[in-house]
């Protein structure tokens, strides 16, 4: 096994009832690698990354994250300690202030004191450029700000890997770039990232590898340069044509 391989997904299968969402998916991710997963809706891309931190269970196959098998006893909890996640709908805690959203995990799961957790939280709020919003409630922030808070909340747990599940799909167009900027910076710092997105500009800029999924299968992978110039499969080609024509 490759020493710096942090995620290993082996012949993963999953179905919701009769509907096969994932079919024999294999994917290996190296430390520091940035992977962008794209594909039409219902292609299983969200389900795939939700399997990585155990939010979805799979039927067969296996996932190993940083040497920890998800199916091992307590594996899911140990993997979640290494993996951060950002959701399409932000999923901030509405009853807590921004800074409380960030400190909840460090204080309750890591046992940090309020003082240390606050310091940590402010550090990451600076990093996503909204330290002045610390005392506000999530609902008083714009969508872009909320998503940046959500990214900061994940980073507070010092994850090795970050999963992004369509992080800009619920945002108004003018707010997409502020979120993508934060993600680009994160990539520059060497974070291992799995990003489900249709933002092809972002993919071109930061992705080491593109993964195209359709019908629950990985249809094609390649560097952005390869796939944007000459997609090998007709399915990927027509998908790109559709989303790039605007």
């Amino acid at each position: 096994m490759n020493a710096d391989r942090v995620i290993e997904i082996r012949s993963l299968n999953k179905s919701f009832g009769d509907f096969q969402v994932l079919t024999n998916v294999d994917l290996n991710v190296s430390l520091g690698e940035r992977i962008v997963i794209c594909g039409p809706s219902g292609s299983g891309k969200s389900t795939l990354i939700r399997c990585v931190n155990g939010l979805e269970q799979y039927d067969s196959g296996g996932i190993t994250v940083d040497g920890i098998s998800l199916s091992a006893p307590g594996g899911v909890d140990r993997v979640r300690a290494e993996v951060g996640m950002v959701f399409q709908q932000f999923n901030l805690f509405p009853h807590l202030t921004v800074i409380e959203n960030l400190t909840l995990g460090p204080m309750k799961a890591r046992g940090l004191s309020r003082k240390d957790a606050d310091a940590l939280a402010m550090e990451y709020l600076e990093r996503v450029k909204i330290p002045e919003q610390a005392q506000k409630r999530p609902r008083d922030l714009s969508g872009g700000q909320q998503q940046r808070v959500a990214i900061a909340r994940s980073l507070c747990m010092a994850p090795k890997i970050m999963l992004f599940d369509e992080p800009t799909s619920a945002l108004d167009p003018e707010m997409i770039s502020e979120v993508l900027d934060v993600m680009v910076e994160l990539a520059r710092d060497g974070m291992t990232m799995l990003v489900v997105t249709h933002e092809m500009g972002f993919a071109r800029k930061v992705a080491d590898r593109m993964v195209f999924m359709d019908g629950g299968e990985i249809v094609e992978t390649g560097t952005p340069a390869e796939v944007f110039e000459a997609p090998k499969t007709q399915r990927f080609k027509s998908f790109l044509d559709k989303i790039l024509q605007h």
Partner: protein
Amino acid sequence: MKRFFKIWMLLGACLFLAACSGDGTWGWYVIDPSTAQGQTNIRFLVGGFWATIQLSLIATALSMTIGLLVALPGMSSNRWIRLPSRVYIEFVRAIPLLPMLFWVFYGLPVVMRSLGFPITIDAFWGAIITLAISDSAFTAEIYRSGIQSIPKGQTEAARTVGLTYSQTMRYVVLPQAIRRILPPLANQFIYIVKMSAFASVIGMQELTRRANELVVTEYRPLEIYSLLILEYLVLVLIISFFVRWLERKMGADESR
């Protein structure tokens, strides 16, 4: 105007009853506050308030605790964990209060004795246990609907920042669900206050029992039971006023 409606109704009822007292065939003298006998009787009747309130408060507190303990496993994704909770709710909901009260008061001590735990259950605790268990099936359902109204993404986000299941419940889900749970729970408290009247049949000295006892000595059921109803009315109106206030406060909080 609408908020005073109940008060006007109450006042009207009082006036009606007072007007009747002049009639020779009616015997309002039994609860006439201007006579010594009337005062003694009223004091005796009103003396049941404290027991009714105590009974209702303790039973509600117990019911809320049992309800939560039943509701949480009832939402598990594992059907074997879910099953006992569903069975409990269906079972308890199907038993009428009065038979359950008899069973707890007369039957439970026998069961416990044969299991090697000789306990005595007095009327007070017999009534509390019955009210609490009977009501817990409903509070469990209130908790369930409240908790399930919180989007799944909240739980997922909490789990991904490392919280355990119980931490997720305590710090993320319940604080949000409580706004939707509290008003119906408070309504359930009103229900318990009314149902506590059943405790009279096993000899608990609460409002209804006292009224019954006075009726037996005075032979004035209309007058005494009228006052009894008035007593419950006052109690429930006070609580529902509090519930309304709570709902407003919660609602205001939500829209903030």
